[in-house]
Every structure is written in C-alpha cells, then in structure tokens.
C-alpha cells in the first residue's frame, strides 16, 4: 500500500474521561437544541452515514431503539481511521455457531430470529440484580459510533463500525459488590430458533458463555453494542445486544446476551472448556503466542483480493496496547493466553 494510514490510537488522542463526558453532555444539549430549531429539516443528529447498498437488507431495530440509534455520535477518540469493511462483508461473514458452523450460515438462518422483546438478567454479586427489559437497560445510555478492528483467532480480520455504549457505564448502574471480580455473560439458548444448538455433533455445550475480569470489563474500550453501520445489529451479528472487546480475539465478544453475572471466581468460557490448550480465558490478540493450529503472526484483512491477499502483521493487543497493556503487567502472557 502506498498511503499509510495511522492505525492505532495514540495516547494523545485519548480524551480524558471527564472531558469526554462533558462533551457528551454538551452534545446532548446541542442535539436537543438542534431538534427544536430544525423542525422539518433533516436531523443533524444523523451524522453517521454508511454506504448501504439498496439491495442489501437493513436492520432498523425495534421502534423504541430507533431514536437512540439515530442520536449516536461518532467517538473519534476510540475509532481507527482505517476504512471500515463494506457493509456486505460485515453482515454475510459471521461466526455465530448457534446458527451453523459455516461463515454463511448465520446470514441464511438467523433472519427470523426474534430479538424484540428481549430481557437480560443481571445476577450475582451486584446490588441491583433482576430481569430487565433491554429497553430499560439501554434507556439511560447515549450511543456512540466506534470504528474498531476485529481480529478472529482463525487469522482473518475486519474493520467494523459499532454502535454501542461503554460496558463500564452499565456495570456502574447495577453496582457490583466488592466481591465481584469477574463478569460472566451468556448467550440465549433457544433450539427452536438456533438450529445448531440442537445438533448432536456440536462441540459446544450451550449456552455459549464468556467472561471478562472486572477491570477489563470496565476498560473504556469495552463496548456493549446494539448496532453496526448506523443501524441496529443484524441477527447474524449478535442482535440485539453483544459485547465488543477489540483487543481480544473475536470469540470473546459474545453475541445475543441474555445474562450478565458478577462473580468472584474466573468463570469458565465456552472455547476454554472445549480446548483449554488452545483457547485461554484472556484470549488477548498476541502475535507471539500461537494458537496450536493457527499461526497468529499475521492476519488477512477482509475483504481481501484473491491475487494479492491483504496480509498484515498482527499487533499485540490488536493494536490497542497503549490502552490495555497495563492491565496485564507482570502476567506471563504465554501462560495466560
């Protein structure tokens, strides 16, 4: 490539949380004002326009979510300047094994997946446990648009614009107790809707579970996503609520979450249960530590041309080292892969 684009967030670009929060307040106020003063004009709030070809399905999300989605604002401080993958690629190339093991199974089989109404159970070491409607969980949060790199353990990667809010904000609201050291997530189990959960050949013991250490969950980069490309999440991408942890391999970013539990001990995670020698709990992107079956030193950035494959060197923590490396200080990353 001739034009080199900066592809990691420099520490100077990271806005201190207080300023960023103020800015959000300011923007919210501004948006309110805009809404009043521009009646009849196109909404100023819709700053995020992605090129979505007319022949591809769009996912507007449930009625109640639309205003929130439309009000989302790009958070440049947390976004890569790399070009996002075309919409087509992001919605047709999915690992969502509940719907099948081929990359194209989810887009084929998930289209009728019911994602509204949706309840999420908050459980464990937390002051406000209970079952909540997704609407009530989302209500207090302003959505941000963040363009993240996504790195799959199978050594492909993609750049994707997510819509979501920091998981930290959600965690603070439900007030975990001092005993909470880890957060454990669960995906829906519904054999009627998710055909692969009914397969006797599956290596996964459903539900799919994942987890983060509390400080990882509270990291400003950790995003609870409800949308992509300015719209709601397509079912194949983990609608209606999924995690995005950009410095970890993609399988950590659990989809279609129905339960968030605060626990004392490191929770078991699906891939770690299946093959503990291959998939660790942390699963931080690390070119130095190979997966026993797939070398991790390079990745293919999709979409990739056939005759000159788009091979890029994998960076530690998927290029987010400045933001996250301090959380793993003193840890032997060969042991805690």
């Amino acid at each position, binding site marked *: 490539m001739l034009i080199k684009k900066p592809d990691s967030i420099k520490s100077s670009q990271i806005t201190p949380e207080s300023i960023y929060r103020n800015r959000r307040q300011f923007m919210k106020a501004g948006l309110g004002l805009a809404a009043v003063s521009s009646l009849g004009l196109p909404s100023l709030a819709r700053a995020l326009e992605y090129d979505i070809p007319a022949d591809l399905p769009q996912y507007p999300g449930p009625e109640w979510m639309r205003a929130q989605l439309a009000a989302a604002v790009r958070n440049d401080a947390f976004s890569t300047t790399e070009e996002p993958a075309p919409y087509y690629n992001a919605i047709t190339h999915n690992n969502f094994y509940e719907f099948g093991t081929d990359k194209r199974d989810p887009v084929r089989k998930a289209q009728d997946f019911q994602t509204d109404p949706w309840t999420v159970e908050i459980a464990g070491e937390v002051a406000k446990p209970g079952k909540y409607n997704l609407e009530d969980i989302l209500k207090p949060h302003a959505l941000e648009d963040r363009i993240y790199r996504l790195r799959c353990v199978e050594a492909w990667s993609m750049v994707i614009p997510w819509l979501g809010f920091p998981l930290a904000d959600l965690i603070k609201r439900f007030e975990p107790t001092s005993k909470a050291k880890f957060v454990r997530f669960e995906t829906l189990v519904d054999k009627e809707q998710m055909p692969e959960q009914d397969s006797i050949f599956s290596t*996964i013991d459903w539900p799919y579970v994942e987890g983060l250490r509390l400080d990882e969950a509270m990291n400003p980069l950790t995003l609870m996503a409800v949308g992509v490309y300015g719209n709601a999440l397509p079912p194949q991408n983990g609608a209606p609520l999924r995690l995005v942890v950009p410095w970890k391999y993609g399988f950590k970013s659990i989809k279609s979450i129905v339960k968030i539990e605060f626990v004392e001990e490191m929770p078991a995670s699906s891939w770690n249960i299946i093959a503990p020698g291959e998939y660790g709990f942390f699963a931080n992107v690390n070119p130095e530590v190979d997966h026993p*079956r797939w070398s991790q030193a390079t990745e293919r950035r999709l979409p990739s041309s056939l005759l000159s494959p788009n*091979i890029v060197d994998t960076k530690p923590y998927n290029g987010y080292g400045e933001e996250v490396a301090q959380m793993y200080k003193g840890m032997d990353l060969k042991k805690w892969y």
Partner: protein
Amino acid sequence: MVLNLPFSSVAQMRLRWWLLFLLPLWPLANLLLLGFGNDLGTDPAKFIVDEMGTWSINFLWITLAITPVRHFFGWGWALKFRRMMGLYALFYAVLHLLAFATFLIGWRSDLFFRELTERPYIVVGALALIILIPMGITSTKSMMRRLGKRWKTLHRWIYPASLLVMLHFIWQIRASFYEQLIYGLILAVLLGYRLYLKYQK
C-alpha cells in the same frame, strides 16, 4: 449384469467414459461460475481453498470405493476408472495447494515456511500430497508395465495417504464434527473392507 446393460454398446461405453471424465470437472466449473458471478462470499480465498480440499477428499474416497463397489454390484467396468478418479483426487489436491499458496499466503515464502512448521494439520496435508504425487506420475499404462509388481506396492500408499488426509481434516474441527464423522465413517468402511479381504485369504 443388469446394471451393465445401458452401457453395453461401444458408443455407450464411450459416452460413459466422457461422462465420468467431465463430471468431476463440475466443482471447478462451478467455482469459476460463482467467481464470475461475484458470488464467492466475503472470503473467497478461504472458500476456494476449502472447496478444492473437500473435492480432493471426495475423489480420494471414490477411488477407494471402486473395489468394494465392483465387488458388491458386479461393476467390472468401474476398475477402468479407478486411475482417473485417483488423478482427480490429485488434481484437486494440487489446486487446493495452489489456491492456498496464492490466495491465502500470496506466495510469501516466510509465511509458507511458518505454516509448514507451526500448523501441524498443514504438515500432514502436505505429507499426503507428497505421497499422492508419485502415484499420479506413475499412473500411465507404460509406467504400469515398467514397474510391474512394484506398481501395486507403490499404489497401496493410498491407504496411509487417506489416513493422513483424514487427520488433516479432523484437525480442523471447531464447533461441529459432523462432516468429519461422516467422512471418517465412510473411510472406516472402505479401509475396513480391505482388512476383511486380507483376513479372508
């Protein structure tokens, strides 16, 4: 045998030859059609590599199936097509390798070396291909004559090759072992039949 009747005349035998020669080219033609129709998905490289690999396995299993099929259905003519099916297995295996080298690693020798040293399933796949190559080279009639008895010995290497191919396939299991189970069961029957024949003697 009744099943032989539709292909009894010379013209019909010729037709059968052409059918069995052209049909195995369909997977390749299909990929080209999909490619020109821009219908290979988001990761065409991986799709093509996987597709070529699968068809190589299919033809390897078909090659192994010829003996039992001949015995059970009395299809004597099938033997004439065994070398052709074996060559198609090699053909798709070579395309599988070429697609891997071109589309997935862009002929980067450093990557190629790393894949060969760090990915055990690629090593067993490569070994299987290395075994198949001399079998392909010696598949001509003149080579059969020249090698005499040794020809058969050499071509029995299809058994270890098929086991390596199966291992190459099993090693890629992630969330489902459905395909590997099916292919494994078929291979077990095909190789088991050889053992049965051996102990019958």
